[in-house]
């Protein structure tokens, strides 16, 4: 049994922070939190046990639907031998030194599908340490050897005498037991909770209206703000006339802030009417002439130059020149908006001695830092209260809406809730990068792929959001899913060119893999067609040295009935992609009507995400990530004209609806390996699986997304 040494310092430090959490814990479950009792036992930053036997788990991750308010407590409860019915949750304060994510540079950040991966050992150790302390406490109280005691279902037992004390009865004594430096973890074969379909703790408040999202925060004296920003990226307000806005009943303030002009009112509607009445003259700046066609030409021109090499194996150029057959293609993807169902929102109260911020953030210490820098207050004086997130997908990592709220709250000296409209949200996002890709492959006379070359041109997310990520001129987020293609092709050359377009770009569910899986998995299908080989069999032949990919691919193909004819009028496409430590393969069953309408009927999804904490959550994430990727593949596009985003709401940025929902069958590969990511890896393979199925149905090869921009006809 492997155990990892715990830093006692972290535990002790953590206890202090959790203590602070007692007074400021934000009630996210709509008033269902247990009242804090006297003498809680707080063994570390994640656990608080009160005499009423309630075990409160302090969760350092943000809930955006991926289930962390259940999976994090499961990791603790498993080792703590807690009574699951006594588990409650509370969101952690901003304290990266304790809740920081080691997988992401120690930032307190929920992203990169890292929640379970980064907590897998830490939280189990926290639970195991607390359990050992409770056992020791009981043994002391009984005057027996702790080795003769066992813990189970929220109590310590002494089987020889039949004595039993609940955890709640032991809080006083346990608080005086030293923290064990090296708690012993359970053998996975003895897990009682991990791997089970545990009911989601956070779901009941999500069905009765009591769940609190950022947009739902209320406090006494709170005003509501809207902000008008320059429609053109990078533009600024030159002058404005507030008289019309101020004439609206209920409007209290009109204040310029760094991103535009804020209208602050008693409620949202007067704030919105006030905003409509504002007259603003903009300085549109250098991006005023930007257009989608111009950006495309910019990327295409940049692609004429060689890029920085992300992967080099063998000599692709020579092998291509000597190949019996060459396949060449250009693949393109558009900008995409996140379009979380809850538009951006944030509430802030700024006082002389401190500030509080309530928001659904994916990055607590980022929120804390921007608030400190705007208010001039020390970090310790800034309290961040994490609400539920009405969708994250990478958008709520950004701090733009926090910055605006804090600036407004400071300017008007009152608590302020900022509510973005859907139009604000659509037009002022950080978009999934548009990219231009030149690919070439060489095939030998026997139909074996010998060479693969891929040049990626696009804006860099890291350059804007996190420059230290860039190594040797390469943003790893632009080549993920492209540089690491798993296929045994002897000559591989992948290179990338960073090209800023003036459009702000950001992390969008599964990031680079979201587009690179489409590009590489569709191009590989082209190679298979050129070589006259079955796309599944060719992949198998090239995956002999990538057993994880191979197993997942074979599972999806077997479940989908690959090789047997599909229902009349339907065709199948297949794709596999690894991202965030997990591998997912999809087989999509698609039909194309005589009018060219694409319908996805069925998606068979196989996933290897290592050891599974909650299979129901894995299935839910695969279903949801499939829909997210399918919306993008079928019709997702943000286009630019006159330097601004042309789309504004769901009529021109349409999402998949229930009447278009395919059946999604999820098959989880049994695994004892350490957990992989789950929130994002379901997105990458769906676009190529569908596009490859469209090729099988129509003979038309789609090389740019979305699919809706192509004229299709069934063959």
């Amino acid at each position, binding site marked *: 049994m492997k155990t990892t040494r715990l830093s006692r310092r972290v535990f002790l430090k953590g206890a202090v922070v959790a203590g602070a959490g007692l007074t400021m814990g934000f009630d996210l479950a709509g008033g269902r939190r247990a009242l804090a009792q006297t003498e809680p036992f707080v063994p570390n930053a994640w656990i608080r046990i009160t005499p009423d036997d309630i075990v409160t788990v302090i969760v350092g991750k943000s*809930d*955006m*639907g*991926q*289930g962390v308010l259940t999976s994090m407590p499961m990791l603790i409860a498993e080792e703590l031998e807690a009574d699951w019915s006594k588990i409650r949750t509370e969101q952690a304060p901003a304290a990266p030194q304790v809740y920081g994510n080691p997988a992401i540079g120690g930032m307190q950040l929920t992203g990169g599908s890292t929640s379970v991966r980064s907590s897998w050992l830490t939280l189990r150790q926290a639970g195991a340490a607390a359990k050992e302390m409770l056992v020791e406490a009981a043994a002391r109280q009984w005057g027996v050897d702790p080795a003769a005691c066992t813990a189970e279902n929220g109590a310590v037992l002494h089987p020889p005498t039949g004595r039993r004390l609940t955890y709640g009865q032991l809080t006083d004594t346990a608080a005086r037991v030293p923290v064990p430096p090296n708690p012993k973890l359970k053998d996975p074969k003895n897990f009682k909770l991990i791997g089970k379909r545990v*009911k*989601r703790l*956070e*779901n*009941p408040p*999500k*069905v*009765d*209206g*009591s*769940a609190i*999202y950022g*947009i*739902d925060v*209320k406090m006494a004296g709170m005003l*509501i703000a809207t902000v008008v920003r320059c429609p053109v990226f990078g533009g600024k307000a030159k002058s404005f006339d507030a008289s019309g806005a101020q004439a609206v*009943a209920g409007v209290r303030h009109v204040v310029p802030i760094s991103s535009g002009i804020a209208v602050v009112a*008693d*409620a*949202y*509607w007067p704030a919105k009417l006030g905003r409509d009445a504002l007259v603003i003259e903009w300085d549109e700046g250098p991006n005023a002439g930007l257009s989608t066609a111009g950006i495309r030409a910019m990327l295409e021109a940049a692609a004429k130059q060689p890029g920085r090499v992300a992967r080099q194996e063998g000599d692709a150029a020579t092998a291509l020149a000597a190949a019996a057959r060459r396949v060449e293609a250009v693949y393109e993807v558009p900008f995409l908006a996140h*379009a*979380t*169902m*809850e*538009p951006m929102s944030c509430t802030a109260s700024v006082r002389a001695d401190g500030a509080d911020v309530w928001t659904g953030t994916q990055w607590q210490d980022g929120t804390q830092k921007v608030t400190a820098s705007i208010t001039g207050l020390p970090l310790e004086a800034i309290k961040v209260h994490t609400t*539920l*997130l*009405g*969708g*994250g*997908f990478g958008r709520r990592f950004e701090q733009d809406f926090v910055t605006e709220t804090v600036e407004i709250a400071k300017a008007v000296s009152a608590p302020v809730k900022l*509510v973005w*409209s*859907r139009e604000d949200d659509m037009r002022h996002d950080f978009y999934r990068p548009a990219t231009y890709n030149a690919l070439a492959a060489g095939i030998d006379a026997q139909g074996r792929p010998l060479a693969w070359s891929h040049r990626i041109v696009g804006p860099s997310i890291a350059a804007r959001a996190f420059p230290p990520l860039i190594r040797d001129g390469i943003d790893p987020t632009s080549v993920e899913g492209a540089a690491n293609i798993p296929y045994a092709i002897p000559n591989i050359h992948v290179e990338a060119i960073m090209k800023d377009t003036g459009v702000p770009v950001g992390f969008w569910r599964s990031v680079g893999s979201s587009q690179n899986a489409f590009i590489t998995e569709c191009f590989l299908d082209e190679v298979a067609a050129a070589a006259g080989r079955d796309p599944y069999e060719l992949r198998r032949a090239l995956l002999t040295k990538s057993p994880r990919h191979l197993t997942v691919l074979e599972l999806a193909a077997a479940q989908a009935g690959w090789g047997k004819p599909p229902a009349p009028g339907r065709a199948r496409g297949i794709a596999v992609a690894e991202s965030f430590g997990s591998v997912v393969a999809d087989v999509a069953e698609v039909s194309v009507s005589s009018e060219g309408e694409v319908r996805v009927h069925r998606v068979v999804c196989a996933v290897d995400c290592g050891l599974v904490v909650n299979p*129901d959550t894995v299935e*839910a*994430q695969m*279903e*949801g*990530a*499939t*829909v*997210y990727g399918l919306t993008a593949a079928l019709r997702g596009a943000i286009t630019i004209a006159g330097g601004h985003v042309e789309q504004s*709401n*769901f*009529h021109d940025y349409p*999402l*998949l*609806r*229930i*009447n278009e*929902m395919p*059946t*999604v069958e999820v098959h989880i590969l049994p695994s004892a390996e350490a957990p992989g990511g789950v929130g994002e890896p379901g997105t990458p393979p769906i676009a190529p699986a569908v596009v490859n199925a469209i090729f099988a149905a129509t003979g038309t090869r789609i090389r740019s997304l979305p699919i809706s921009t192509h004229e299709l006809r069934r063959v």
Partner: protein
Amino acid sequence: MATLNVNQREYTANARPDTPLLWVLRDSLGLTGTKYGCGMALCGACTVHLDGEPVRSCVTPLSAAQGRAVTTIEGLAPSSDHPVQRAWVQEEVAQCGYCQPGQIMSAAALLARTPTPSDADIDAAMAGNLCRCGTYQRIRRAIHAAAKLAGGTR
């Protein structure tokens, strides 16, 4: 001052008569279970019942709701135990959950009209409710489950 009947309670709201019911509920009455998603009747997040019929409260002016019975997610069932709510928990429908009050209000209205809906009935009644988290497959399953739960308790 306008009076409004919400969840069988009389409220007075200090809002202009053309204020969308959504913002009256959320800002004046503090009933934040009804969500804002688009403001243009495109997403269904704001769905409430007006005399039992599902409406998009973001495009329903306060004046049109006066003198009628408004039901929001908070008032759908006294102990949040409407068959649709029970089915939603049983089937673990919610991911982020933001769209779900609207989904549940639409589904409850569907079942009131059509106690045992087919998949096609579900598609027709629910196509106006977007879910960015992609919970549609479970919504479908949960509506069938709710139909059974409701049948069982009748």
